[in-house]
């Protein structure tokens, strides 16, 4: 990926990517060393590497701080999430930007070093009806009216290590005495709840705030 570019800036992100151990200052430094070692071993490298970590890559305000760092590089290898990579690309139209991380999902750290996907950011939130367990993210079929017949030992037919979301939902609703929520019929989803690509505009509320001030 980096082979066409001589001077490579490895760019970390100080927010979510740092928390996820995927692209913070530490990972930037590891990758930097790894690339230098790999180049030295191969003996025919022509790259020079530099590193920097922004507080946030996904915010234009923070990207301004990058101005002088990119003056003498040929590409940025971003360890930001997919949003960070795109924000850098949008901000610097003449600079090639490469994704250093394959952004996979929005999850939570269940134990040290283990992350589990929890939210698909679908804009059609069901968590009130499903006892706080997302069937869209955690059921492999994303179905809304209860489990399929493939669930066995509380696990999913697609992956025997994965809990069946609907078994979890049933047990939690039962515990909360809210099983009637599962008995309801849920119609076809509205995939235009927020059309893709999604945009949320909160300017109205900001204006109100200014008026009040």
């Amino acid at each position, binding site marked *: 990926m980096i082979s066409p570019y001589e001077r490579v800036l490895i760019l970390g992100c100080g927010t979510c990517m740092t928390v996820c151990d995927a692209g913070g200052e530490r990972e930037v430094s590891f990758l930097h060393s790894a690339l230098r070692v790999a180049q030295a071993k191969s003996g025919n490298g022509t790259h020079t590497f530099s590193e920097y970590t922004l507080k946030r890559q996904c915010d234009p305000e923070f990207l301004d701080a990058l101005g002088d760092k990119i003056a003498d590089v040929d590409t940025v290898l971003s360890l930001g999430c997919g949003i960070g990579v795109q924000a850098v690309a949008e901000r610097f139209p003449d600079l090639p930007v490469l994704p250093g991380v394959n952004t996979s999902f929005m999850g939570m750290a269940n134990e040290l070093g283990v992350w589990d996907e929890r939210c698909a950011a679908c804009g059609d939130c069901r968590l009130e009806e499903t006892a706080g367990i997302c069937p869209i993210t955690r059921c492999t079929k994303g179905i809304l009216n*209860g489990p399929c*017949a493939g669930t066995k030992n509380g696990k999913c*037919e697609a992956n025997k290590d994965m809990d069946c979301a609907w078994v979890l939902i049933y047990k939690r609703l039962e515990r909360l005495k809210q099983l009637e929520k599962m008995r309801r019929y849920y119609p076809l989803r509205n995939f235009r709840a927020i059309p893709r690509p999604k945009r949320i505009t909160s300017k109205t509320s900001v204006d109100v705030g200014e008026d009040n001030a």
Partner: protein
Amino acid sequence: MPNSLFEEKLNSSEFLVTTEIGPPKGVDVSEMVHHIDLLKDKVDAINVTDGQSSVMRFPSLGGCLLVKERGGEPILQVTCRDRNRLALQADLLLACSRGIGNVLCLTGDSIDVGDHKEAKPVFDADSVQLLRMIRTMESGTDMAGNELKGAPKFCIGASVHPEADFIEPQLIKFDKKVAAGAQFFQTQGIFDLGSLRRFMQYASQFDVKILAGIIVLASARMARYMNENVPGIMVSQPIIDELASVEKGKGLQKGIEIAAGLIRTIREEKLCHGVHIMAVGNEGIVPEILEEAEVISAHPKAQ
């Protein structure tokens, strides 16, 4: 006015027998046609599976057209795995226009268990929503509320899993399918009649017909494989042991005997309204099972 021959039989007190045919992977339909000819007069309806176990095959709709062509009564299996609501509705219009009057509404297996694991799973609808989709179309509009030029009519069914190891959530889903308009149910494979009896105690409060799913096993190895790999199948240990007890090469004969025994008991004790026989690749032996179960002699299906 019933929407199909099968619906007419559903409304009678007859002991119903359906079976299913898995279409080929390819355009050589000769074996499927052979099985249709063999079975069409011996059962009340023939299901054609819709890429079962998420394996790409000749489509259910095409298989049902062949069943019609050969003079049989088809049940179109429709899963939500591969088609969004536009494609589902379009296929239903085609099915009705060609005289296919019965639909079994299924969510569909996970893509992960099949042979195209990298494909995009659709699941725009689930089985309950599919049932309601059909009832909506029958009322004359599509799922966007647009008027249809000619509304379809179907006899619709769904599946239920009486042997699920955690039955309560399955029963909630069963209730939703009944409320959505399902007229008949084909159960997942029944291996323990106790679970069928327990389920029927619950299901008999509803005005729906229950056909017990009978899977014909050909060996203990096949049973263990299905338990591991086929969603919704739980072959009980006594049956695995029984299959393992026979000498090599006699497994299928034993499987036929077990299936026939289950069918005979279900019919004699009136445990439910009929059976749905799944011979999984051995469709040709269904007539033998029916003879052994004394269903054919007791109740000739030939018209």
